[in-house]
């Protein structure tokens, strides 16, 4: 090959890209690393966008993952405001696009390419953005949403009871706004949690004054001045001067259409390799194998981006991926920390440790399927997470781990018919 412009070219400048760079340098990779950042900023952290950025008015800085000097110090070249436009995997050429343009803006030849372009919020037809309706993906989105929440005093309508929608609903209540959370499924987080656990989250929001409308979709929207009137599937209406569309995300992989990869999240092996030699994928744009489920699943969670970005870097330098651990996500809502480790499919059995209906809302739900440990939902029970991981991993490894915690003080009793109370 003629000399490449980048030994590792990373399309996308988010968390997966950042962790890939860090791991490459940590493992001694000395080649040229170029990162295409569609946004005009170095890689930054998204979880604060639906939490502290909304609730803390004074904070205007982008929550960048590393200080600006890090990139020069580690020889990582950021191209800001530059996106991937087209891929020719046979010739290892990536065509670029300036963020505000649509035409080609140069090409880069790479030795290895990492697809880390993330995902975009799903849009609902009939709702124009700007003015009343918002989405929340970027820091700019978060600042605009924060301004709307602080400057207006009418109702916030949140479309979609996923993690982002629920965190914004909680933040808005903290700012004193009236909030209606509208979810098309029967319970929040319907794809991640069985109804009994999803319903607990709906109740948590109701206890904090959020109007939760489940099994409801928006049939029609009309704008009257600066107020949106949403007509729901049951015929009722919700008037709101701020609307957040938080109805999920779709992988940002349309640019790969001519390359033979996609549509949707790009399938990979456990090391992040795609079907094309020299092309990897990580983060929201990827579909890694989940050894616990036995199939590839896309994940839009923070932990997945970190682990996958790291795995790709390890593959590039010739290391095997790290040992898999059960996947996990966390969410902070109304002052409670919610963590799901492993999986909670619709046909699971649940054993409760603690009382979800008590005022403190603190509990652990131990999740099994056909008797095998597969997951745990923890609410304000961070003490139980390490144990939950081991419980699930050991079962996966083929042993039946007795969840004994007798050696540790202040640890939860494991699940079992006679022992569902937390140790004192």
């Amino acid at each position, binding site marked *: 090959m003629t000399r490449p412009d980048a030994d590792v070219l990373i399309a996308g400048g988010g968390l997966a890209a950042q962790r890939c760079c860090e*791991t490459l340098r*940590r493992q001694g990779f000395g080649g040229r690393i170029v990162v295409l950042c569609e946004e005009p900023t170095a890689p930054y952290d998204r979880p604060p966008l639906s939490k502290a950025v909304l609730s803390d008015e004074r904070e205007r800085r982008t929550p960048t993952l590393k200080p600006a000097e890090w990139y020069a110090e580690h020889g990582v070249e950021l191209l800001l405001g530059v996106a991937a436009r087209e891929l020719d995997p046979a010739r290892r050429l990536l065509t670029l696009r300036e963020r505000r343009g649509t035409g080609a803006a140069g090409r880069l030849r790479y030795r290895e390419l990492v697809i880390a372009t993330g995902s975009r919020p799903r849009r609902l037809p009939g709702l124009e953005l700007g003015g009343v309706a918002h989405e929340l993906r970027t820091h700019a989105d978060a600042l605009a949403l924060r301004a709307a929440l602080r400057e207006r005093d009418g109702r916030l309508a949140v479309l979609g009871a996923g993690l982002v929608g629920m965190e914004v609903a909680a933040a808005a209540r903290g700012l004193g706004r009236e909030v209606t959370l509208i979810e098309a499924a029967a319970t929040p987080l319907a794809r991640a949690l069985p109804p009994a656990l999803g319903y607990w989250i709906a109740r948590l929001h109701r206890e904090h004054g959020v109007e939760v409308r489940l099994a409801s979709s928006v049939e029609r929207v009309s704008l009257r001045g600066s107020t949106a009137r949403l007509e729901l599937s049951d015929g009722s209406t919700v008037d709101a001067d701020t609307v957040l569309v938080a109805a999920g995300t779709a992988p940002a992989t349309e640019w790969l259409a001519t390359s033979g990869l996609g549509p949707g999240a790009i399938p990979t092996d456990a090391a992040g390799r795609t079907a094309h030699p020299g092309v990897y994928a990580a983060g929201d744009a990827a579909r890694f194998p989940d050894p616990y489920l036995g199939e590839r699943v896309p994940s839009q969670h923070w932990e997945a981006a970190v682990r996958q970005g790291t795995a790709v870097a390890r593959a590039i330098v010739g290391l095997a991926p790290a040992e898999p*651990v059960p996947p996990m996500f966390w969410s902070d809502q109304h002052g409670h920390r919610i*963590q799901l480790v492993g999986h909670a499919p619709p046909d699971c059995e649940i054993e409760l440790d603690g009382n979800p209906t008590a005022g403190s809302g603190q509990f652990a739900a131990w999740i099994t399927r056909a008797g095998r440990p597969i997951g745990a939902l923890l609410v304000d029970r*961070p*003490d*139980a997470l*390490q144990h939950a991981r081991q419980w699930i991993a050991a079962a996966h490894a083929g042993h039946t781990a007795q969840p004994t915690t007798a050696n*540790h*003080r202040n640890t939860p009793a494991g699940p079992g018919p006679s022992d569902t109370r937390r140790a004192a």
Partner: protein
Amino acid sequence: MTCLPIIDESACLAHGDCEALAPDVFRVDDVATVIGIGTAEQLIAIAQACPACAISVVDEATGEQVYP
């Protein structure tokens, strides 16, 4: 009781909350490393704040685990 935090490196994903809360005890580069000690109360609170729950706390004198 003086306590020492222990990092589970396979669970640590370098969120950085521990360093933000106690920069004299934790330093986060690629993973968190322990550079100091603290009281049980302080360290347990930080362990509970870690989103990955990668921190255990032991009694510095006896090595006995006090959290989780």
